């Protein structure tokens, strides 16, 4: 037993492991950079870095296995920490090296936490419009809302992941009826009623509203930066007495075609049903006062993009104007709003909304590494200078 631990400790504290891991890290970054042309930034992050194993593909087929970012980073972290515990001695002479290593450890931990905690959303606001929610890039949700109240909608949001398996959905008693998933497609085109090979007729997926008259083609999912998947699902609602209320085809494409959400009446209330981009609601709102798109005089070359927004919290604690522009985001309640894009003839701004509780860690770790190196080299320099002085005739 003791021998086994000795071997383990020797393995995890060895400098060879560090070198191998750093080399693997270089290979991983190189292969992932090549893969980015096909998969986009987000796809590569998920497929190469936020995973234990990566499977690089050549024309769609995996060709070999690489240790993923979590495995390389995690082993490097254990390697560094155990080297500190078993090989290094905590002495004043080596304090700089210790500090620099602490910085690297913090950097690795920070990257892990970012991967686990970071949420990316986008908020697109028209000039004069007020928004208190942002929308996800990739995630979708089935929103079932009681829209009877003239001022508020009571929304129950079911994440897309729960729709992937057919059967009864557990809505935790939040709805007066049961939701049964009949079918799910992660990315699908919605077509008119015309039948053609490969199309699934809507009549086999829905018997209520628009879906029954349309048809659907499943298509390959995308992870590219500028495209989105448009999922579709066939959903049956069953009343408390076991009687069916009907089956609906839901998809973001279908809602846009129709220009309205699909609605139905149940229990004397009106309900809306839609599969939409997942939303995150906030207890403050942003109103776009002005979006500016400045060009260098006499050219079409963009000089600056900026959004002047009014930030207003629900409780009235905050009410101020903020200018968001390149590299100067708005930070509020743990969220960061970056100027990301624009649309609609400069009438709409698109802000990237990021929640990352560990965003300060990379800054702290860089300071630690820089400070550590300064101390270490400074001490060597001082020692060298004083030795030279004493050696001088």
């Amino acid at each position, binding site marked *: 037993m003791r021998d086994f631990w000795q071997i383990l400790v020797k393995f995890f504290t060895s400098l060879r492991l560090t070198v191998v891991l750093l080399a693997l890290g270089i290979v991983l970054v190189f292969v992932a950079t090549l893969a980015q042309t096909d998969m986009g930034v987000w796809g590569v992050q998920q497929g190469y870095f936020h995973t234990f194993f990566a499977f690089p593909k050549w024309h769609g087929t995996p060709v070999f296995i690489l240790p993923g970012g*979590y495995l390389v980073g995690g082993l490097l972290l254990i390697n560094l*920490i155990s080297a500190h515990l*078993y090989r290094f001695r905590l002495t004043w002479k080596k304090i700089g090296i210790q500090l620099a290593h602490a910085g690297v450890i913090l950097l690795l931990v920070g990257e892990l936490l970012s991967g686990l905690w970071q949420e990316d959303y986008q908020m697109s606001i028209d000039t004069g419009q007020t928004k208190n929610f942002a929308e996800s890039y990739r995630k979708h949700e089935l929103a079932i809302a009681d829209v009877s109240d003239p001022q508020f909608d009571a929304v129950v949001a079911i994440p897309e992941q*729960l729709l992937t398996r057919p059967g009864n959905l*557990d809505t935790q008693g939040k709805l007066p009826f049961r939701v049964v998933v009949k079918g799910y497609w992660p990315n699908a085109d919605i077509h008119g009623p015309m039948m053609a090979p*490969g199309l699934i007729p809507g009549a086999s997926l829905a018997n209520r509203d628009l879906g029954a008259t349309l048809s659907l083609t499943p298509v390959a999912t995308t992870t590219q930066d500028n495209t989105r998947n448009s999922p579709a699902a066939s959903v049956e609602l069953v009343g408390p007495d076991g009687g069916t209320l009907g089956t609906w085809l839901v998809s973001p494409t279908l809602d*846009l075609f129709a220009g309205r959400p699909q609605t139905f009446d149940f229990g004397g209330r009106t309900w809306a049903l839609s599969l939409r981009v997942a939303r995150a609601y906030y207890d403050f709102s942003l109103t776009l006062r002005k979006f500016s798109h400045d060009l260098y005089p006499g050219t079409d070359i963009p000089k600056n993009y900026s959004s002047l927004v009014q930030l207003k919290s629900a409780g009235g604690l905050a009410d101020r104007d903020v200018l968001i522009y390149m590299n100067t985001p708005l930070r509020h309640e743990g969220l960061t709003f970056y100027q990301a894009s624009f649309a609609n003839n400069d009438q709409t701004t*698109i802000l990237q909304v990021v929640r990352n509780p560990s965003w300060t860690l990379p800054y702290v770790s860089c300071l630690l590494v820089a400070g550590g190196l300064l101390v270490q080299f400074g001490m060597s320099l001082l020692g060298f200078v004083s030795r030279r002085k004493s050696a001088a005739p």
Partner: protein
Amino acid sequence: MPSIRPLLLLSAAFVIGLAAGCRKAEVTSYRAPKEAPRAAAPAVAGPSSPSMPSAMASTPMPTASGADLKWTVPANWESKPASAMRKATFVIKGDGGAEAELAISALNGDGGGEQSNLVRWRGQLGLPEISPAEVAAGVTRFEAGGLKMVVADYANDKATPPRLLAAIVPVGDATWFFKLTGPAALLEREKPAFLAFLKTIKAP
């Protein structure tokens, strides 16, 4: 020699941290103020691309709501009620119960683009893939009533329906689609009428 325990503890903390960090998908409920209806479709932007988002095949597009076009149809074309997705639908009856359908729809912007619509239609008819240049060369282009029209005529005996005769017409900031599908013989008979019909189309 320090004990092995810190190493073990750290490894365990790493694994537990990973497990705890993975959030579970949960059903949520909340009250949200009603939204004012929006005219424009939400644009799709890359996470960090400071450029204009472009229309992609996977991006949903709303039916255009601009002013309608005016046209004259032959007497044998039967009008059917318009639906949410369609501006108009006509049914053309042939011999022996044969039936062709003309679907007219309009989408905002370029409606996904001429090229991708032509490729999609070829795909629907099960036609082999050809190069973009060949797709572009295989259509007829003309101008009528001040509108630029692109007409495609695709056929495949094995497909249902076996023939498609379609026109793509950009009007203002929308794109109109005139899609006639049905049996090959019936479409052959109606092709002159369809082309004549296209020439009657007028923007408001």
